[in-house]
C-alpha cells in the first residue's frame, strides 16, 4: 500500500547490520506459529464435549457416514474450528491495527464502539424484527458495527482539526456508553426474555454453523487484506501524525482505511462469536514482545496468534465444564490475563 504510506519507515530496532538475519528468524517464527495453529486446528476437530475416538472422528470427517459422529464432526466441530480461526485472526489483527492507528497501547477493537454497535443492532433485531438465528444476526451485527464506527469517526472529526487518536478514543467511549445503555434499555423493557441474546452476548462459538462461517468469510478476507496492506503505512503513523505527513504518508486516508478494516474484522468476529474483547488487547502485545515494533510483522503474527489463542481457549472450554461448555470468551480471559501480566512484568510494553 505504497500509495498510502509512500515512505516506508524502517523498523527502529531492526539492527542495520543484520536485517537479513532478523528477517529470516521472523519468517521461521511465522512458520512455527502457523504449524502451532495447525496443531490446534487438529485438536479442535478431535476434542469436544462428546468423547469420540480419533478413528471415529477421522471416519466421520473423511467419509461422513451419517449418524451422531458425522453430525458432531462435520456440522459442529468443523464450522466451529473455522469460526475460531476466523474470529481469532480477525480480533488479533484488528487489535494490532487499532493500537497502531490510535497509538494507544490499551486500544482494543471495542474501543471504537464496534462491539457496542453490533450488540445494539442484534438486540433491536431480536426485539422488534423477530430475528432468532445466528445467520441473521450477522447482517445486523455488521450494520451496527459500521454505523457505530461512522458515528465515532464523525464525532471524532467535528470541530477544529482532523480526527486525532485521542478524540477518536473519546468519541468511541462515548458512543459505546450510549449504545450499551440503549441495549440494556431494550432488553429490560421488552417483553421477551432474551435467551438467545444472552448466549450471544457472553461470547461463544458453540452455536456456529457452516452457513454463518461462509457468510462472514468475505468480510474477514477483505478486512484482513486491507489491514495487512496498511503495515508499512502504520509504521509511518507510529512516528506521529505530523512526522508521518512530513514523510509523505496520507494520514487521514490511512486512518479511514484502517477504521474500515477494523469495522469489517470486528463486525464479522463479533457477529459470529459475540463480544470477545481480550484477544484484541493482549495478542498484539504478546506479538510485539518478540517481533519488535514493525507493523509489517506485527499484523500477520497477530492474526496467527489470535487464531491460536481463540481456538485453544475454545477447545479447553469444551472439556472443563462437561456436559456443558465454558464460553470461549471466559477461557480467553482466564488464559490471557496471566500471560498479559507476565509480559507487562517481564519487559516494558513496546512503545507505540
Amino acid at each position, binding site marked *: 500500500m505504497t500509495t498510502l504510506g509512500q515512505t516506508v519507515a524502517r523498523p527502529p530496532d531492526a539492527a542495520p547490520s543484520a536485517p537479513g538475519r532478523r528477517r529470516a528468524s521472523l519468517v521461521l517464527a511465522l512458520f512455527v506459529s502457523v504449524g502451532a495453529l495447525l496443531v490446534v486446528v487438529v485438536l479442535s476437530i478431535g476434542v469436544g464435549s462428546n468423547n469420540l475416538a480419533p478413528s471415529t472422528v477421522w471416519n466421520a470427517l473423511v467419509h461422513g457416514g451419517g449418524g451422531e459422529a458425522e*453430525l458432531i464432526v462435520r456440522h459442529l466441530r468443523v464450522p466451529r474450528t473455522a469460526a475460531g480461526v476466523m474470529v481469532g485472526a480477525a480480533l488479533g489483527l484488528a487489535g494490532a491495527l487499532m493500537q497502531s492507528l490510535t497509538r494507544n497501547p490499551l486500544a482494543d477493537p471495542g474501543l471504537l464502539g464496534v462491539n457496542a454497535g453490533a450488540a445494539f443492532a442484534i438486540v433491536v433485531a431480536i426485539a422488534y424484527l423477530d430475528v*432468532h438465528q445466528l445467520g441473521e444476526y450477522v447482517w445486523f451485527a455488521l450494520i451496527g458495527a459500521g454505523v457505530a464506527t461512522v458515528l465515532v469517526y464523525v464525532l471524532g472529526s467535528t470541530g477544529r482539526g482532523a480526527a486525532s487518536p485521542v478524540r477518536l478514543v473519546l468519541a468511541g467511549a462515548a458512543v459505546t456508553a450510549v449504545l450499551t445503555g440503549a441495549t440494556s434499555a431494550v432488553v429490560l423493557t421488552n417483553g421477551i*426474555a432474551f*435467551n438467545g441474546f*444472552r448466549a450471544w*452476548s457472553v461470547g461463544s462459538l458453540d*452455536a456456529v*454453523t457452516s452457513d454463518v462461517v461462509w457468510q462472514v468469510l468475505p468480510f474477514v478476507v477483505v478486512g484482513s487484506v486491507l489491514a495487512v496492506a496498511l503495515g508499512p503505512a502504520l509504521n509511518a503513523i507510529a512516528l506521529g501524525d505530523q512526522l508521518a505527513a512530513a514523510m509523505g504518508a496520507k494520514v487521514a486516508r490511512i486512518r479511514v482505511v484502517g477504521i474500515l478494516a477494523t469495522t469489517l474484522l470486528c463486525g464479522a468476529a463479533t457477529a459470529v462469536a459475540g463480544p470477545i474483547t481480550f484477544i484484541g488487547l493482549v495478542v498484539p502485545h504478546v506479538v510485539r514482545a518478540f517481533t519488535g515494533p514493525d507493523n509489517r510483522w506485527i499484523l500477520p503474527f497477530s492474526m496467527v496468534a489470535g487464531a491460536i489463542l481463540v481456538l485453544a481457549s475454545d477447545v479447553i472450554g469444551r472439556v472443563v465444564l462437561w*456436559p456443558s461448555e465454558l464460553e470461549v470468551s*471466559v477461557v480467553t480471559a482466564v488464559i490471557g490475563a496471566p500471560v498479559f501480566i507476565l509480559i507487562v512484568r517481564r519487559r516494558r510494553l513496546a512503545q507505540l
Partner: protein
Amino acid sequence: MRHPHASPLRAQGLGRRGFLTAMGGGLAAVAVAGCTNSANDPPASAEPTSKGTSGTEPPSAFPVTVTHKFGETTIPAAPQRIVALGQTDCDPLVALGITPIAIGSFVEDWYDPIHPWNEQGFPDGRPEELNFVEVDFEKVAALAPDLITMVSGGITKKDYETLSKIAPVVAVPEGYTDSAVPYGPHTVVIGQAVGREEEAKALVAEVDAAYAAVREAHPDWAGLSAIHAEAYTGLYQVLGRNAPRTTFLTSSGFATTPDLDELTGDKYSLEISAEQLDLVGDLDLVIWTTDPGAVADIQKNPVIKRLAAVQEGHSIWMTYDKDDEFFWAMDCNTVLSGPYAIEHGVPLVEAALAGQSPLSEGA
C-alpha cells in the same frame, strides 16, 4: 417456580453464567423424592402436618398450626384477607373457593399470573399483583392481610421473618425445593392454613386420579422415555427430573433416562453442549421450549433439526409466552393447572408420538 430462562432483569444483573450458577446453587439442596408417579407423594419424614384439624370441619378448626421448613405457624381464626404471595399460591385457594385479596407475580410484561384455570376465582376483576421475587413489605402490610402464603416460588428466612410481623406466614413444606413443590403438598399445606385440609386432600386425589386415568388410557406410554429441553440460539438446556414441567411427563407414565438423571441430578435444569444433544434427541418424546416467536427458527437450526426426535416428529414445540398456557399449566403444576395440562397436553403427546411435530396452542 422461578424460571431460569425467563427473567431478563436477573439475567442482566448477574450475567448468564452467574445467573445459572445462582440458580443451580439455590436448587442444589433439592431433596424431592420424585420418580414416576410418586412426584406428588410427600417424603414420609416431611409430610405437612396440621394439629387440631384432622377429621374436623373447617369452621370449628381454628386455631390451626401449620408446619413448614421455617417452623410452625399458628393461624388463630379463619382468614378473611389472604395474600397469596407465592407464585402459584392462588391456585389451591381458588380451588377451595377462596379469592385472595392479592397474588404474587413476576410483575413483568412477559408474565401473567391469571390463567384459564384460575380466572374463575376472580369474578370481580384482576386482583392486585405483588412482586414475589423482591417483596415490597409496605405494600403487603398496607393490605392488612390475616394470612400470607409463600409456598411456591421461594422465600428466604429473612423475608419469612419480616412477613411474619405483618401476618401469619405459611412457607414451603419441609423437604421440598422452592421451585418444585408438587401440587400435592402445595395444596395440602395451603388447605391446612385455611382449615380445609380434608377438602384439599380430596382435590389432590382428583388430580392424582386424572393422571392415573391418563396412564390407564395410554398403557403404551409406560416406559417410553421423555424429557423437556430448551433451545435458544446457541444455548441448550435440559430440565431435571424434578422440575415441575418434567413431572407432567412422569405423572403421565413416561420415564426420564438414567443418563440424563445422572447429569441433572436435583437441578432444575442443566446447560448442555450442542455435542451432547443426542442425549435428548434419542428419546421417544421431547417437549421443546424456546423464546416466543422463535419456534420456526429453532426448528431450522441445523443442529436441532438433525436430532432423531425432531426428524421423526416426536417433538412438541412451545414457548414460555404468556399466551402459551400449556407451558404454564405444566410449569405451574398446581391442583388447578394439572387438569388443564392433561386436557391440552394429552392430544399433543398423542400427535407427537404419531410423528406430527405438534405445536402448542400459544406458541
